[in-house]
Each structure stands twice: as structure tokens, then as C-alpha cells.
């Protein structure tokens, strides 16, 4: 039995110190070089390249920084990039983000994996306008048709841990989706989309959104958005490990409904998000289901926040959130998948930011929440079980305190912070982080040592064997180079080591599921990203690579005969995306994704041994044509072909869990009409 002993962790921390020391030692030399040269300082360089929109964010720190100065490896995707690429949902967006890929999980749901580590369950946090979208019974996130991209203004992806900022669901990465809200000017958006797969529609739906900035009452703004869509994940044939097949046409439903609204007056903001995703699927555990099983995800999120500035350099922000969720809901009491539970979280946060000097920001605060999970119907039918030791309702409390210092100076910017959490059930977690950042001429570099954790969800606790939080230690280095205006090349290397990973298992004989902490898990690798932008359009190329870090003791994640890979997730991913302006109003946007081999791991029925089916190297090719201001200003038309090559594209389960690879991203022809009315926008450039 190999446990991550203190010695190993000390060694890892020692390496962290060595890397940080080397980074800090090298920096004065760079600083000296810069001081000696007459190269323009960064400020002037920014002024020389103003075409790139300047964006500030708090996605990776409590301090507000420019996105490029975030103390993490961050990828930002703008609304224009999303519209130009023809992305249909977050899966399409994340597919182009280095390190991300997907896996199939129970009841046909697709979730994200990152850098080889399966992250669907409590390890990757999905935020929509600051509201945590992971359902909190299992802490999972569902991808595919999940949210209308027309409402997205920006996606910020923290490719690394975010526990210091966000807590126990942000162990591997954070996906922060910023949507249309009260900020902006009075406008109106309407959009309709239709996508046709070979045998059935892929999606059909529409979006309406409006924002009103009340000029008669300065400081008042309100917005309302609504979206409804119906769709299918695929029309291909699903085939389980024994070779039984069934069509997903009509049996891979994805019907999202989103309603958002809010009102803001000066520094006080209130917003509400209702999100529903109705799904069904036919991929049971080890079998094809005779009839599709339902799993609906209902959630309501409300938030109120305000900001006070009692002194010039002090800012205090209280924030209250309420989430009510009913995940994996199958309301049919005679269904084998009957499941009807409600989770409620009331959360209060108080954050104070103080900038005693121009070069120092200090942030501290407290984060308290109370969770309650309740059975909506008696246990004993389908998947409906009681909580813990046979109760219909459980409640937990969690207290967190956090602190961060963001210090800028000409030698190196240092960001240090930590979060302490105390959960009423599983106890304490403490996660510190230290990041060093440095820019010198066209180069910039980041060095990061961070710990993060995954907090067990309600069902993890109920079904688990005294599970405790899993902890991950990250080492990351990133270097970026801007050789010319509009060109950015970045390379980052990472090493992630998970201790006490919480692992799911299912016993098909007894039809019981369970969670337990296993030994250790880890991955390391690198990601290369090149982005360029000019008057002709823009383009990006990325390559991602990971390998198990020699510390993978979780049997169900291993691939027999292939120690160089984890189950389900490709070790190599190459992406290309471009938006080429053929005419000032017309652009063509190709997307290509080349995925290395993946492995679907399952247990052979005859021998009882674990075996791996190989999913070959595959290419996904999309083409999208976008025309702006067609006939009238603000009218946009887009047509696209997805999976032009008709590749039989499937995603495997990233562990040996009995689910055969699920067809996704099937060939689809799509048309989209969008009308955007902004009375204050300048005329388009000729």
C-alpha cells in the first residue's frame, strides 16, 4: 500500500521552493537587462497596440488585474471569438482550450477532463456570472447544449487550481462564463438557431435578451434574458461493450431552458438565474437500455451583492447567494432511475480589499454556507436512497476564511494567499498558494506553487466510506513571448499530484455505488498556445500533452498496456481555429481538432480482466461562415458544417465504469440568425 507520505510531499514542496528560488534569482538579471536597455516600458508597449481589448478580471485572484497579469494560466475567449468560430455550446468552446477534453459518465452525461485528470465530479468549477453551476449532490457539471452561447460575453478559463479563491470545487480548473447582465448599454438581442444532423435535428431554439439602462434615474440598469432549445446529442448508433447497438436518434435528448434577470442600482446588484437541462440516454452500465432513462437538472440561483467604500483605499463587498437544485431528477416513480432530491445552499461572503500602497493589494474575508439536502419522495425505488445512515434530510455547515496579498514591483510581482475551510462533516482544509509574475520587454513569465482541494459532495458523503477531501499540489511555469503586435506564443509546463483522490465505484451486482479515498494520482505535461490577430482576422494553434506522473495508483483510471495514458482522455491534442475576413462583413472560420489515441477501459466479461479498446487518432473539422450587418445594421447570419469529415466521434468513460464510448459531435449543418440592436454603438467601419 503506497500512501503519499509526508516525505514525498516535503520533497515536492522542496522542488517548489527550488523552482521559485530559481525564478526569483533569475529575475534580477532580467531586470538589470531591461534597465540597461532602452526598450520601451510595458506601458508604452500597451499604448502601441491598443487594438486588443483591455480586459480586467478577478477570475484568478481577489485583486483586480489585467487578464494577462492574472496569477494563473488563463485562457479568455471573447463573445466575438465565440460567434466567429460558430461554437454551439461550452463543449465547442472548451474543445479549443488547451488541456481540456471530455468523457462520458452515468446516464449519458458528458463532463470535462483536464490534463488527463477526470474532473467532472467536484474538480472543475463552472461559474455563470459568479454563480456556481456544479450541482452539489455529486458536485458534477454537465456539458453539451448546456447554455446558449448567444448570451455569453466572455469565457475565462483558469487552467489550474482555484481553491484559494473558490473553495472545494475548483481543484483542477475554473470555467468562468460571463453573460449578458446589467452592465452595458440599452440593447436588444434576438437569435434563432437550427441544426440538422443526418437523421434528426441537432438543435432548434431561440434566445431573446434585452437590457435597459434608465437614463432618467442614473445608476439604474436592468436586464432579462430567456432561451429555450431542444436538441439531440447525436444521431449515431450507440454500441455497448458487448456489441449491442441502438440509435441515439430520439434517445439523447438535450433540452435546455435558461431564464436570467437582474436589476442593478449603482453598487447594489441583484440577479437570478433559472437553468434547466432535460436529458435522456440509453447507455446504461454495461448494457443498452431498452428505453431512454431521464435525468433532468433543475437549478435556481439568486445573488445579491453590494460594494461599499468607507475609505479611499478600502472596499468592502458583502454577497449573498441562494441555490436550489434538483439534479439527476427522474420523477417517474416506476423508473429504474427514479431519483428526486433537492439541494439548497445559502451562502454569505464578506470580502474586504485594502490597497495601503499603490503596489500592494490585500484582500481578506469570510465565506460561510449552509447546505441542506432533502428527499422529495420516499427512498427505496429506483436510485432513490436515503442520506447517510438512513435519514431523509441532512444539513452541513461550512466556514471559510481567506487572505491574499498582491504585490507589484519592478523586480517581480508576488501573489500569495491561502484559504482555510472547516466543514461540519469532514473537517479542515487548508490550501496556500504562491505565484510570481514578471514581464520583461516582449517576454513574460509566471511561476506558481499551489495546493487545492476537492470537497466531498452530499452524496459523496452519504455513499462514501468516511471520505475526506482530496488535495492536489500544483507546480506550474508559464512563459509568453510577444514577438510582434498581435502575436502571442505561450508555453506552460505543469505537474499535478493528487493525494487521497475520491474515487467512484459501482457494483453492478448489488446495484450500489460508493466513494472512497484511494492512494494517489498525478499528471504532468505541457501546453503550447500561439495566437495571432490582424486586420485580416485572427487565428490560434494549440498543442496539449500530458502523461501520468508516475504516481497513478487508481486502478480504474489505468489503461492496461498503456501506462503513458489515463483512460478516456487523449495525451495529445492539437487544435486550430481561424477567422478570416474575406470581406469587411464576411468571415470564414475553420476549426480543426486532432486528437490522439484514447482508450475505453472495461472489464472483459469472460476473463474478468480489465481491457482497453482503442479509439483511434481522429480529426474533427468544422467550417463556419459568418455575415454581419446583412441588409440592416445588426443582422447577422451564420451557417456552418460541423464534423465535415463525418468522423465517428465518440468519447470514452475516463475510468472503468461500464459505459461504452458515446457518440458525440456528429455531423451537423447549422444556420443561425441573430439580430442585435444597440442604439449607442458606432457605425461599423467601412
Amino acid at each position, binding site marked *: 500500500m503506497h500512501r503519499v507520505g509526508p516525505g514525498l510531499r516535503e520533497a515536492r514542496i522542496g522542488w517548489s521552493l527550488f523552482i521559485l528560488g530559481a525564478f526569483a534569482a533569475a529575475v534580477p538579471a532580467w*531586470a538589470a537587462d531591461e534597465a540597461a536597455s532602452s526598450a520601451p516600458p510595458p506601458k508604452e508597449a500597451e499604448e502601441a497596440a491598443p487594438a486588443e481589448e483591455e480586459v480586467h478580471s478577478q477570475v484568478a485572484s481577489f485583486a*483586480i488585474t489585467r487578464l494577462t497579469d492574472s496569477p494563473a494560466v488563463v485562457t479568455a475567449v471573447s463573445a466575438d471569438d465565440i460567434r466567429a468560430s460558430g461554437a454551439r455550446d461550452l463543449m465547442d468552446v472548451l474543445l479549443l482550450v488547451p488541456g481540456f477534453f471530455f468523457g462520458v459518465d452515468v446516464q449519458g452525461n458528458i463532463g470535462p477532463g483536464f490534463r488527463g485528470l477526470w474532473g467532472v465530479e467536484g474538480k472543475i468549477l463552472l461559474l455563470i456570472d459568479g454563480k456556481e453551476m456544479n450541482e452539489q449532490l455529486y458536485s458534477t457539471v454537465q456539458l453539451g447544449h448546456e447554455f446558449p452561447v448567444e448570451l455569453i460575453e466572455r469565457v475565462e478559463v483558469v487552467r489550474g487550481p482555484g481553491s484559494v479563491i473558490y473553495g472545494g470545487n475548483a481543484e483542477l480548473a475554473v470555467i468562468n462564463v460571463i453573460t449578458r447582465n446589467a452592465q452595458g448599454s440599452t440593447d436588444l438581442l434576438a437569435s434563432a438557431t437550427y441544426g440538422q444532423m443526418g437523421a434528426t435535428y441537432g438543435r432548434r431554439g431561440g434566445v431573446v435578451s434585452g437590457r435597459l439602462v434608465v437614463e432618467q434615474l442614473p445608476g439604474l440598469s436592468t436586464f432579462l434574458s430567456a432561451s429555450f432549445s431542444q436538441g439531440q446529442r447525436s444521431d449515431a448508433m450507440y454500441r455497448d461493450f458487448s456489441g449491442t447497438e441502438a440509435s441515439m436518434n430520439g434517445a439523447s435528448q438535450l433540452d435546455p431552458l435558461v431564464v436570467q434577470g437582474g436589476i442593478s442600482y449603482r453598487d447594489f446588484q441583484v440577479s437570478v438565474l433559472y437553468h434547466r437541462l432535460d436529458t435522456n440516454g440509453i447507455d446504461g452500465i454495461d448494457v443498452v437500455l431498452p428505453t431512454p432513462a431521464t435525468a433532468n437538472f433543475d437549478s435556481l440561483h439568486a445573488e445579491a451583492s453590494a460594494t461599499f467604500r468607507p475609505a479611499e483605499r478600502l*472596499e468592502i463587498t458583502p454577497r449573498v447567494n441562494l441555490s436550489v437544485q434538483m439534479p439527476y431528477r427522474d420523477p417517474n416513480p416506476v423508473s429504474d432511475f427514479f431519483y428526486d432530491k433537492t439541494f439548497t445552499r445559502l451562502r454569505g461572503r464578506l470580502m474586504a480589499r485594502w490597497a495601503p500602497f499603490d*503596489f500592494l493589494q490585500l484582500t481578506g474575508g469570510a465565506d460561510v454556507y449552509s447546505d441542506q439536502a432533502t428527499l422529495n419522495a420516499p427512498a427505496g425505488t429506483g436510485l432513490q436512497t436515503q442520506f447517510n445512515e438512513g435519514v431523509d434530510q441532512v444539513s452541513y455547515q461550512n466556514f471559510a476564511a481567506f487572505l491574499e496579498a498582491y504585490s507589484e514591483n519592478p523586480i517581480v510581482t508576488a501573489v500569495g494567499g491561502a484559504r482555510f475551510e472547516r466543514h461540519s462533516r469532514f473537517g479542515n482544509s487548508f490550501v496556500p498558494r504562491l505565484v510570481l509574475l514578471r514581464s520583461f520587454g516582449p517576454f513574460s513569465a509566471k511561476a506558481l506553487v499551489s495546493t487545492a482541494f476537492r470537497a466531498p459532495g452530499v452524496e459523496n458523503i452519504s455513499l462514501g466510506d468516511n471520505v475526506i477531501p482530496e488535495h492536489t499540489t500544483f507546480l506550474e511555469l508559464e512563459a509568453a513571448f510577444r514577438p510582434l503586435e498581435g502575436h502571442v506564443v505561450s508555453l506552460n509546463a505543469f505537474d499535478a499530484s493528487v493525494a487521497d483522490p475520491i474515487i467512484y465505484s459501482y457494483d453492478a451486482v448489488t446495484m450500489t455505488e460508493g466513494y472512497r479515498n484511494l492512494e494517489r494520482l498525478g499528471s504532468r505535461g505541457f501546453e503550447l498556445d500561439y495566437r495571432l490577430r490582424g486586420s485580416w482576422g485572427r487565428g490560434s494553434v494549440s498543442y496539449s500533452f500530458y502523461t501520468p506522473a508516475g504516481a497513478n495508483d487508481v486502478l480504474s483510471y489505468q489503461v492496461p498496456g498503456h501506462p503513458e495514458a489515463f483512460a478516456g482522455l487523449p495525451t495529445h491534442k492539437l487544435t486550430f481555429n481561424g477567422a478570416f475576413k474575406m470581406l469587411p462583413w464576411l468571415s470564414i472560420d475553420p476549426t480543426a481538432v486532432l486528437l490522439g489515441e484514447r482508450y475505453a477501459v472495461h472489464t472483459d466479461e469472460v476473463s474478468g480482466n480489465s481491457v482497453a479498446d482503442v479509439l483511434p487518432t481522429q480529426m474533427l473539422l468544422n467550417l463556419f461562415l459568418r455575415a454581419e450587418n446583412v441588409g440592416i445594421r445588426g443582422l447577422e447570419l451564420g451557417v456552418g458544417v460541423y464534423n465535415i469529415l463525418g468522423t465517428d466521434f465518440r468519447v470514452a468513460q475516463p475510468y472503468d465504469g461500464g459505459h461504452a464510448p458515446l457518440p458525440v459531435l456528429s455531423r451537423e449543418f447549422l444556420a443561425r440568425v441573430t439580430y442585435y440592436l444597440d442604439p449607442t454603438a458606432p457605425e461599423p467601419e467601412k
Partner: protein
Amino acid sequence: MSTRIKKEPQRKTARTTGILVGVILFVALGANGLAYVFLRRPATATPDGPATTTTGTAARPAAPAEEGDEGMARARRAAGIAALEHREYDKAVTELTEALRLRKDKGDLVELLNIANELRARDKVKAPIAPSPAPPTPPPAPVAAAPSRPPSKSKPTRVATREREREKPPPPEPEPAAAPEPVRNGLLLVTSTPPGLVVTVDGKAVDLTPARVPVRPGSHRVTLAQGERRVFDETVEVGEDVVKPVTWEAKPEPPPVVVAAAARTEPPPAPKPDPPPAPAPAVTKPPEAAVTARPSGSGDLEVTSPALYGEIWINDRPYGFPPVNARGLPAGKAKVEVRVQGAVKRKMTVEVVPGASTPVRVR
């Protein structure tokens, strides 16, 4: 039991990790503080410091030999634009004519000189009503001096285009006549390096740089586009009967001509921003940042943004959502931004008047 066994090493290592990171953090912050104190000043003072704020009318020494005429031409051009801002049209004509003489690549100098001559002529017509504040200057170079220089190759087409556009009533407001007007328009003087960029004011394309655009007093959104690419987008305040320069340069110029500008010894200017103090004549920075000595004291800004709900940032510090009353700002130029979802949507430079509250309305 098993839980306890698992938690003990975890707590121990977490404590050790915390101590180590705490030590690192302490050392890093301490080193940062020291580095900030000792290194920040020299690092920012030379290339990154604010544009020269010294002023002086006699500051016109010969440029170093290695800079040559080109450097002096840039300085003369900047001085000409500064003079235009302060309605010293005779001086502007002189400076621009001299710049034209010195510069091989005429760039936008011919058009700037035409603008200066035009404004001077208009000013003289209006002189009995509103005498120019400019002091007597040496006789300006004759207007005919401009045509005597070989025009740039691109000039005929561009000038023709500009002339055609000027024949039309220039949007958004007609050009003010010489006669007294009920509302005295301001004037945007938009220049760029390189010239020829499309100027858009409040969403309407009006001209190519260099351009003079009459506008109503108030705030106006000015954008410059180089082909498909928008290179400049700011909201500027234009006062009544005030010439407001807007300048953009494609790349930082080579090190400026070293001009021994005399430090301004007068007391800070009066609270009223108009008329402004005497211009700084010889800097290669845009005159926007170069012409005014930084007054002492502090003032307030009352920022409203009735049509755009976004967070107001002043001098890189958040002040909340509008309307915002920012008190105790250092007098002089202040950078005001409106950020929507973290993205800078409006950016402008305004003057903080010491001892006064200045309203700023963002469009």
C-alpha cells in the same frame, strides 16, 4: 479510525506547507517592498514617466546634432499642435511652417498648416468680438510657403477627398460661421502618426486625420481607424470655443529631442481651465499630455454615465458604478474609464481643477 489515520499526516503536511509558504510569502513581500522603494523610481523615471510637464515659451534650443532636422521637425510639429490648442494661431503657423521646412517626409504637415491658416483667418474675423489671447509673435511664414514645398505623393487624392467632404456640412454640426453664435462650438483637432486615419465622432465617420471637427460643447466619443482596425477610442470633453487636440501615434517615437525647457515658475493656473496656461512647445509626446503644467492641490470629479452602466475607474482605481463623486483627486489630468464586465469600453482624460468639482458626462 481509518479517517483519523488519514487525517493525521494530512494535517501535519498542511501545517508544514503553511509554514513554508508563509515564510516564502513574508520574504517575497519584504523583498518586493524593498525593491519597490529602491528600484521603482529609476525604472519609471526615465522612459515611462509622464510626458514632460515643463513649460516655457523660450524653449527652443538647437537639437543635438545626431538628432538632425527630423527630430526638430517633430518638436516643431508638436509645438504647432500645442499652439493650435491654445489658439495661438500665428505661432502655430510659424511652428508648422518651420516643421515643414525641416521635414523630408511632409506627412500631415501641409494639412495641419492649412488648418492653422484657416483658424487664424477665422480668428481674425472674430477678433473684434473675441480677441485672441495669443501674444504677439514674429511674423508668420506666408501661407504660400506651404505650396512651395513638394507635396507628398498621397496628397492630391486625400486633399481632394477632404475638400469634397468639407463642401458638405460636416457632421455632426455645421461649421460655425464668423458671426456670433448662440452656442459657441468647440473644435476637435485630431492628428495621428501616420496620418490618414478615419476619424469617427459619436459614431459617425467625419474625416481623415489630420482633421478639425466642430462639435457642440460636451463629451464626444472619438475613434480612429486604421483600415479595419480601430486604434483609438476615447471620450473627450470639449469646452465652448475650445480647441481640443486628440492625438494618436502608431508607435512610440524615438527618444525625443532633448529640449531644455525652462521649468515653469509661475503659480498654478487659475481654477478655470479656459484659457489654459501657455503651451509647452517642444516635446514629441502628444500635446494632450504635454502642454499643461501639473497644478497643485486636489479637486473632485462628478462622473455620470447615463447611457452606459459600467464601473468607473479613475487613475486605475475603482470608484463604483455611476453616478460617482470622486473626491480629493490630485489636480491635473485624470484618466477616467468605464469598464463593462472588466473590459474598458470608454476611456478619457479629463482635467481635475484644484478646489473645484468638475462634472464629467460619459456618453
